[in-house]
């Protein structure tokens, strides 16, 4: 499972090989739709629409821009279910050439460790690549770990926090957004990059590209197809979420009804003054 030894990075079977960029994309609940259940303080995520994680979309946008300048192939790799597939249509409409998804009911609750093992196996099965790109973080779990873990499992270097990623005269150049400095690096493929929000604004696909996306291939695998046993993967789970709750909000919640606006406003100004909020 280390993958360091028998990975063939570039396709050798065909005569012409186009370098490939793999983008790891994930669907998450739309946080603008997630409401907190006031009695349990739990986020109601099941009812929210699922969308591609914003940073993964930016990773995809960066990959598509490299494809546009240097003629690469862009594929996405995900783990998920039917809802994920709907989100993948957006990735294909943006410009990905093909999508791979690992879908297995047994893997629904696995942690980042097990997820990374599955994704690394899927990336290997999908074929040779130059670069893997993913978002630095997904906003649901906020784990920030699948990218570096996959890089370690595949035995390739990582270029984290990229706010620029491009090909210049055949070389991969990235600008990393670090604490005190911006670090410009040249990375030799294969490598994995994670991107931050500043990297780009993802495109909105045209109607024509949305139609075309429906004809692009989505390859689906289960754990077995990757040579993995679901129960073994589940045995790799190390982190279990016991509970997710909104912190208790201790606000005064004084509601002033504005039947007479001047009165309501005067009341508010008085409150603000007595709180020392105005100066």
């Amino acid at each position, binding site marked *: 499972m280390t993958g360091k030894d028998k990975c063939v990075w570039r396709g050798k079977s065909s005569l012409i090989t186009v370098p490939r960029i793999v983008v790891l994309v994930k669907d998450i609940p739309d*946080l603008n739709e997630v409401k907190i259940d006031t009695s349990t303080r739990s*986020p109601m995520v099941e009812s929210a629409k699922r969308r591609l994680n914003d940073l993964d979309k930016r990773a995809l946008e960066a990959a598509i821009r490299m494809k546009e300048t240097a003629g690469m192939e862009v594929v996405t790799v995900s783990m998920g279910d039917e809802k994920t597939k709907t989100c993948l249509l957006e990735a294909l409409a943006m410009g990905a050439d093909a999508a791979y998804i690992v879908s297995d009911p047994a893997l629904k609750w696995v942690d980042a*460790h097990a997820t990374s093992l599955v994704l690394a196996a899927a990336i290997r099965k999908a074929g040779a690549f130059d670069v893997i790109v993913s978002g630095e973080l997904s906003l649901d*779990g906020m784990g920030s770990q699948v990218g570096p873990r996959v890089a370690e499992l595949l035995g390739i270097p990582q270029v984290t926090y990229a706010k620029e990623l491009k090909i210049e005269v055949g070389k991969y150049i990235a600008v990393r957004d670090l604490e005190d*400095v911006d670090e410009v690096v040249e990375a030799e493929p294969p490598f994995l990059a994670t991107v931050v929000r500043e990297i780009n604004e993802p495109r909105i696909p045209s109607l024509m590209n949305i139609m075309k996306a429906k004809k692009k291939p989505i390859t689906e695998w289960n754990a077995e197809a990757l040579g993995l046993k679901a129960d073994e993967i589940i045995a790799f789970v190390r*982190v279990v979420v016991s509970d*997710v709750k909104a912190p208790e909000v201790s606000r005064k919640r004084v509601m002033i009804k504005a039947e007479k606006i001047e009165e309501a406003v005067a009341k508010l100004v008085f409150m603000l*003054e007595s*709180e020392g909020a105005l*100066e």
Partner: protein
Amino acid sequence: MHIKTLIYSENTELALQLLGKAIQLSGAGVSAIAVDGDQASILVSSGAVKTYLVKDHSFDALRAGILDVVAKESPELVMFGSTKRGRELAPRVAAALKAGYSGDCFEAEQVDGGFAVKRLAYGGSTIASMMIKGKPTIISVPQRSFQKPETQGKQGEIIELVTSTPLSKVKVLESRTKKTTDLGLENAKIIVSAGRGFKKKEDLKLLEELATELGAKMGCSRPVSADLGWMDQWVGISGKKVAPRLYVACGISGTIQHAAGIRDSQLIVSVNSDESAGIHQLSDYSIVGDIYTVLPALTKALKERLK
């Protein structure tokens, strides 16, 4: 509890906070990894029994050094500081060790069968409680989560670690010092913020007038910036997190996205005509009313107050 702990952060202040927590968790037996001699002596005198010194600060050397020390010390818990460096090293080390990892934990306790930790989830709107099992358990910890050890002047061992790593395939071409970033909203004392209650861009002048009267900076909710493009930066999970003395939300409904961004405000005031809008639950004072009439009235009242 008799467990061994290993700590690492290139930021000495944060490393000391990790050390404080590690001493509390393990009683004794804390090892540390330091990046220079000064840091090593500080950690030793503050209570680290063994401090390994890694002089090569490249990612690969640190990764190899940490794995080497884990093999030598076999700790139950490895704590990284949640700096950018720490957050890129920790998951990679975790993968190499087939270990469980949870990032940005602001609480960590040893319990039966592992460690119980707390961290933010869903963009910071909620707190997730998690159990990590397996040896070692790896976590990263943000600034100011734990107290530094009180004691100083302790004795310990400093061991220089020689790591040999192959030449990195990632070549640093240039390091550019960052220009000071715009600290406008994050440091503002008072913020007035616009939401979808504003029907057109021109109407933002109502907000502007209020801002002038209050001496406030202006912000907005995500849709006003990201969807409508009326303002550059928004307040929220994916935007700016703010902590002013006074936050005035005008025509903002109060999604999770926005709530997480304003949570650290001292006083929250909202104006929204919808009595059932979530923003009222997040506010200290709210006026149920139309921003188009309430904001001018509020501006006027504030103006008169100053006379």
